[in-house]
């Protein structure tokens, strides 16, 4: 009965329509090089402000799934990844397209993205409940360290330099703390400005950091002339799909693993999985880097499986692992849902709703991918000069419609220019967004932990090192800082360098 209600919610005409539109829109945005998934999700988040949670989730989840997959179109057709997660797809996707096999490559990418996506969601479904049970034992000390781990990992792995990542995350937390303090009602960093008393809404921050800054950054970069390859037959042969199922499962597991660790993300998942395919596939259809279907399959199944993986820490612990999950978490918070173990206890229907909506979005992705490529592929050729002014209009409208307050447009502008400067000077924007979203949780858990430790800093530190879960998290934090996951970074660089040389 419980599941029937959830399925009937998803299949209500309005939600189904929004899911279909969101997935298609996500695919198209993902397919256009230069338009990031964060940009699309940030804009959409603002439009869903006044909607019900079910409608908001339908649109956002559809767009999220679509964006991750959509990057493969331009990667295969133009040799330009529409999203960072599709970098590895270019290695073999474009050579295939030049051999006149673009359709088959896209068809396989679609089918394996679908299987990878479902694998990720299957693992989410079985892993989340036990993790939730562990998370229910978390106290303020554990949450404080957990948020620190999340921010540090995202800051250090997403950025190129550890110190820049930490600065971005710290500044994000400071921006997230602006406004009334939740304990004493004191205005922090408001500078007696009435507009700052209520804090800075995260939607204008998101839109500024992802839309305005991206538009400015892309405008300043070289815009190469593009030429699209012929597509041809899209639906892959069943024999080919079945033959590659073991590789897809292996790649999906790697994608899920990368998704569960904050900061790794779908781009690294795809690159590592590509490397794994190179080492494990004995007889590829062609040499890797020169048009091997296995290269496309490994990359695409891993990056889509990663989506399910990133949901595990977000839904069970309340800590998003990348920008997209941070935005999704922001949308949930905006609609009164706090992701974390209690969500799964007190409002488990939303956990299952997200899961089933993602499954439905994967089906839409499969249908669109196999039927609309020939019709919609030209969208990857849309000129930036046409898109960018329209994005600015939507960004301004999106930030205004949140609470109908013109000050949000000013905040959006401020964060847009700040984000642009951050991108120019290699400060990771994603870490700042995570800081903004996690600031209230970090502040609350830190101060509660201090009170629990008897307002003594030495006792607070002792508690951090004597509570088992907190100690384990501290060890993870320490190891992460010590190694910065050097082995992953090394393989990332190696794969990237090898494949650039291969070209």
């Amino acid at each position: 009965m419980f599941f029937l209600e959830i399925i009937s919610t998803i299949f209500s005409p309005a939600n189904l329509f929004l899911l279909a539109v969101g997935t298609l829109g996500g695919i198209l945005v993902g397919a256009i090089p230069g338009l990031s998934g964060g940009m699309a999700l940030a804009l959409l988040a603002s439009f869903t402000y006044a909607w019900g949670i079910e409608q908001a989730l339908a649109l956002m989840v559809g767009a999220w799934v679509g964006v991750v997959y959509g990057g493969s179109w331009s990667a295969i057709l133009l040799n330009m990844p529409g999203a960072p997660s599709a970098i590895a797809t270019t290695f073999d996707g474009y050579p295939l397209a030049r051999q006149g096999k673009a359709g088959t490559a896209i068809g396989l990418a679609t089918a394996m993205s679908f299987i990878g996506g479902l694998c990720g969601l299957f693992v989410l479904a079985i892993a989340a409940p036990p993790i939730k049970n562990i998370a229910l034992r978390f106290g303020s000390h554990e949450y404080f360290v957990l948020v620190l781990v999340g921010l540090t990992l995202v800051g250090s792995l997403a950025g190129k330099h550890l110190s820049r990542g930490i600065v971005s995350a710290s500044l994000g937390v400071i921006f997230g703390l602006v406004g009334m303090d939740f304990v004493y009602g004191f205005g922090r960093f408001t500078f007696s400005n009435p507009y700052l008393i209520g804090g800075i809404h995260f939607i204008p921050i998101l839109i500024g950091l992802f839309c305005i800054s991206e538009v400015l950054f892309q405008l300043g970069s070289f815009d190469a002339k593009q030429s699209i390859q012929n597509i041809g037959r899209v639906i892959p042969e069943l024999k080919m799909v079945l033959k590659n199922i073991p590789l897809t499962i292996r790649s999906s597991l790697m994608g899920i693993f990368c998704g569960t660790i904050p900061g790794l993300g779908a781009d690294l998942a795809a690159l590592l999985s590509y490397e794994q395919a190179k080492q494990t596939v004995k007889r590829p259809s062609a040499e890797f880097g020169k048009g091997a279907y296995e290269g496309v399959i490994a990359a695409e199944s891993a990056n889509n499986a990663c989506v399910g993986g990133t949901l595990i820490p977000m839904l069970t612990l309340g800590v998003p692992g990348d920008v997209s999950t941070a935005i999704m978490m922001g949308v949930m918070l905006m609609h009164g849902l706090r992701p974390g173990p209690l969500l799964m206890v007190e409002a488990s229907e939303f956990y299952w709703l997200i899961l089933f909506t993602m499954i439905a979005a994967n089906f839409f992705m499969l249908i669109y991918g196999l039927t609309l490529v020939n019709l919609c592929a030209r969208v990857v050729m849309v000129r930036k000069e046409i898109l960018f002014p329209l994005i600015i209009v939507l960004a301004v409208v999106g930030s205004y419609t949140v609470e109908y307050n013109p000050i949000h447009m000013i905040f959006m502008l401020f964060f847009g220019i700040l984000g642009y400067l951050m991108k120019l000077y290699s400060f990771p924007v994603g870490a700042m967004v995570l800081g903004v979203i996690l600031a209230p949780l970090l502040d609350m858990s830190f101060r509660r932990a201090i009170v629990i430790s008897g307002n003594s800093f030495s006792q607070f530190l002792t508690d951090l090192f004597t509570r088992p879960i907190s100690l384990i998290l501290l060890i993870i934090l320490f190891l992460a800082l010590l190694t910065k996951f050097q082995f992953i970074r090394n393989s990332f660089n190696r794969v990237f360098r090898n494949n650039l040389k291969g070209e």
Partner: protein
Amino acid sequence: MKRSDLVASIILAAVGIGIIAESISMPYFGNRLDSPGSLPFVLGVIIFFCSISIGINAISNPDGEGEISTSKLPKWSDPQGRKVYAMVVLTVSYVILIRHFHFLYTTIVFLPITFFALGIRNIMKLVALSVIPTIIVYLVFTRLFRVILP
């Protein structure tokens, strides 16, 4: 020495010190540790030390060897740079004007000017690209989403 990194480190150090000063000036009720300024203080210290690290790195690494290159602010002499500055000015103007005039009027002026600034010269294209999206956005938001536009 990478000049941009050094400038960034000086600015960030100033920001860190500002945050520390602001957090110290926040009131506390009995205990400083659980006061509103405790976490901002810690963050201010972290930002300050990270900025020092960036500064030291900039000074000790004169050629930027091993660094993953950072971009620079675009120059006015560069056509792409001019587009960036034009976009900033036009967006700021759009945000200012939209507060005083209706969305429709402001957008219908903003879009063709921006398209023109970005290199689209065909008059018919300019009109079509400006009028049609403006009307679509207006109708979708006001009729479908039932939201009030500025």
